[in-house]
């Protein structure tokens, strides 16, 4: 496998590979066992970096990649939609920030110290959900930051806490949020749901007292 292909794989996992190249890569993955193996390893390596050993999570990512490849129709059939690929890539994109997350963990180590080391793998895995991507420096002036301002991408929801449950807790927390950020909390709370999920339906609503 050439370095070029390796770079493409890495970019694909980061969600940064252009559509035409992604399409070609997916085609190649269909028929190249070595490439599929490499993708799986890359996914696992990234996930392990993220999760400090949470291999099931890593396998989940790899399985998603494999499933997408399996869904890819044979030649002549309807092509997998680019949005699906984007979604897939977004799911794997967290792997791409592994290095920066690892750096962040190192930076935080003096504060978190032994607690991190003693936490179970599932806990440490969640550290990787914090996107650490280049954004405008806080010290930059407003106008300086304007054209180059970038916000981190939304992190995928980890399994376990549904967006609907999050809404319940946010509503309960809202009144205690700092006045400085209360509007931000509201913005997150009543934001329209997107593909990745946002606060929405409330579990347990059915059967509760109406008004």
């Amino acid at each position, binding site marked *: 496998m050439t370095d070029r292909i390796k770079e493409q794989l890495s970019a694909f996992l980061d969600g940064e590979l252009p559509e035409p190249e992604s399409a070609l890569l997916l085609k190649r993955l269909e028929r190249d066992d070595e490439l599929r193996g490499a993708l799986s390893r890359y996914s696992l390596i990234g996930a392990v970096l993220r999760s400090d050993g949470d291999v099931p999570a890593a396998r989940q990512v790899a399985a998603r990649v494999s499933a997408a490849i399996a869904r890819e129709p044979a030649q002549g059939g309807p092509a997998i939609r680019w949005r699906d690929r984007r979604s897939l890539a977004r799911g794997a994109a967290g792997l791409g920030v592994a290095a920066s997350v690892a750096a962040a963990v190192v*930076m*935080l180590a003096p*504060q*978190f110290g032994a*607690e991190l080391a003693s936490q179970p793998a*599932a806990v440490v895995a*969640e*550290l990787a*959900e*914090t996107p*650490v991507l*280049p*954004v405008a*420096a*806080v*010290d930059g002036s*407003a106008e300086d930051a304007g054209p180059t301002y970038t*916000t*981190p*991408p*939304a992190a995928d*929801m*980890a*399994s*376990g*806490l549904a*967006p609907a*449950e999050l*809404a*319940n*807790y*946010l*509503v*309960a*927390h*809202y*009144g*205690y*949020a*700092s006045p*400085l*950020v209360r*509007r*931000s*909390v*509201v*913005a*997150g*709370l*009543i934001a*329209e749901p997107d593909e990745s999920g946002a*606060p*929405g*339906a*409330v*579990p*347990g*609503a059915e059967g*509760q007292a*109406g008004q």
Partner: protein
Amino acid sequence: MRLAVVTAMLGLLALPAAANDGQAWLARMADALAGTSYSGEFVCESAGRSERLRILHRVRHGSVSERLVSLSGGGRELVRENDEVVVYLPDQKLAIIERRSARSDLMGALPTFNAGASPWYEVSFAGREAGLLGPAAVVVVRPRDGYRFGYRLWIDEASHMPVRSELSDAAGRVIERLRFTQLALKGDIPDAAFEPAVDRARLRWVRQAPQVGGDAPAWRAAQVPPGFRLSMSGLQAMAGASAPVRHLVYSDGLASVSVFIQAPTPGKTPVVGSGRAGVASAYTTVVQGHQVTVVGEVPPDTLRFIATGLRPADAPAERRN
């Protein structure tokens, strides 16, 4: 031109020392937020998304009314009347009512932030810039550790209202930007303006309210970041929970974290996971069979740090900051 510059410089020299005091500006802003009625629109950019909201805020004889409406088209909104908050999610045909006891008043439940006395933040005056309403004082609140976020605030010099803010992580990177695009200070706003534009008859209603319970927390955090203190403890009904949930609030005076502890529910499998909405994050885990969920406008690592140290109050102490 030169005359204008000299005049401006003389004007600056003539300003009292407090004009360049970041802490003084924060105090003025706190007063303005607590006592000003206003309406406006703002844009909140976070997590790769941009939300535009309209806000109405009224303070009348000590009573606070607020309404925030998403302008993204779905009709979601939040209406607050003193201790009651209602979140309308018409796309889900749902409304969530959150009522809290008068004892834990919205503002009073949190300790007053005294930047000068807080060793966890460094406050500085960063200069003046043009703001939405006119000249704005720029104040930077920089956290001294990675347990909390930092802020950069643009405070209107005349009204003392924050017209813009940025939230930054421990590395100093901006993770959220909030900017008013319209802001009008008002003497009063009619009651009708706080009526939600939602057909309430078509909604299912979920109530979350405090429950009567003992004052002593049945659970405690064995480890909290430096400067965080317990500011509220109570029981409350939560949607989806069959029994009242223990609610603890920890705050460093500026940032706050809510901890919810739910007793094991028959037939419900405890879960571990996380979520995020704007600057607020949540982390849920299982401690001694209880579902523990921690929510707050702090870095996710801080939530995990607190969550993983939660213990029943009668458990032996392991560590306390």
